[in-house]
C-alpha cells in the first residue's frame, strides 16, 4: 500500500476555517499548481417535521471508510491530472453552520480540479460508510440519509 494510505481523513468535530487556510498556505511552494477547487460541506439547520436541526453527530465504519477514501483518492489520481488532493471528514458532533467535509483538489489547469473535485464528492456521498444523526433542539433525533 502506498504512503497515501496513511493520510488520515477523519477529524474530531468541525473542520475550522483556520485549518483550511493552513492547508491552502501549504500549497504556495507547489508552483506548478494553477487551480484549486475546494468543496466544503456545511451542516444545515434543516427543519424536519417542525423541528430544527441543531447539530449532526457523525459516526463511521472507520476501517472501511478509510479504505473507501483511499480507493476514491487513487481512482481520481488515475483519472485526472492532479498535483495533489486532500480529503477531511468530521467524526463526532458538528453544529449547524460548521464544516463537516473538506475536499481540496489542485492541478495545473482548472478543468482537472473542477472535474475531480465534483467526482470525489459524489463518490464520498455514495460509497463511504459514514452515518449521521441529526439532533434537534429538544435532543430528539433522526438518522440522516444522503439523497441529493
Amino acid at each position, binding site marked *: 500500500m502506498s504512503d497515501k494510505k496513511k493520510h488520515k481523513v477523519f477529524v474530531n468535530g468541525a473542520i475550522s476555517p483556520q485549518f483550511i487556510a493552513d492547508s491552502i498556505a501549504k500549497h504556495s511552494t507547489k508552483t506548478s499548481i494553477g487551480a484549486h477547487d475546494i468543496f466544503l460541506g456545511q451542516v444545515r439547520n434543516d427543519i424536519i417535521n417542525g423541528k430544527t436541526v441543531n447539530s449532526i453527530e457523525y459516526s*463511521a*465504519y472507520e476501517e472501511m471508510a478509510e479504505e473507501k477514501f483511499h480507493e476514491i483518492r487513487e481512482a481520481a489520481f488515475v483519472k485526472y491530472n492532479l498535483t495533489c488532493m486532500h480529503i477531511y471528514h468530521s467524526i463526532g458532533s458538528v453544529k449547524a453552520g460548521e464544516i463537516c467535509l473538506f475536499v481540496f483538489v489542485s492541478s495545473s489547469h482548472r478543468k482537472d480540479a473542477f472535474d475531480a473535485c465534483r467526482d470525489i464528492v459524489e463518490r464520498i456521498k455514495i460509497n*463511504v460508510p459514514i452515518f449521521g444523526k441529526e439532533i434537534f433542539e429538544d435532543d430528539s433525533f433522526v438518522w440522516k440519509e444522503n439523497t441529493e
Partner: protein
Amino acid sequence: MTVNVIFFGALIDAAGTNKTEVKNVSDCDSLKSKILVDYPELNNYKFLIALHNQVVKDNLKLNEGDTVALLPPFAGG
C-alpha cells in the same frame, strides 16, 4: 463456525447492541436470515452488508472469524 457481526448508526438503536456473533452460517444470505430472526426490529430498516470492507452484492461464502458489517444508509458529506 462463528461469524462476527457489527452494527452501525440506526441499526445499533434497532438491534440494541453494536455487535454480536452468529454461529452455523455458511454464507451471507443465511447470515442475514438469521440476524433478522434474532433482531426482528431490523426488518424495518434498510441496510447493506459489507465483508472485508466491500459491500456484498452476491451471496458470498463466509469463513470462520469473518466480520460482517450491517450498514444503514450513508450520510457522509
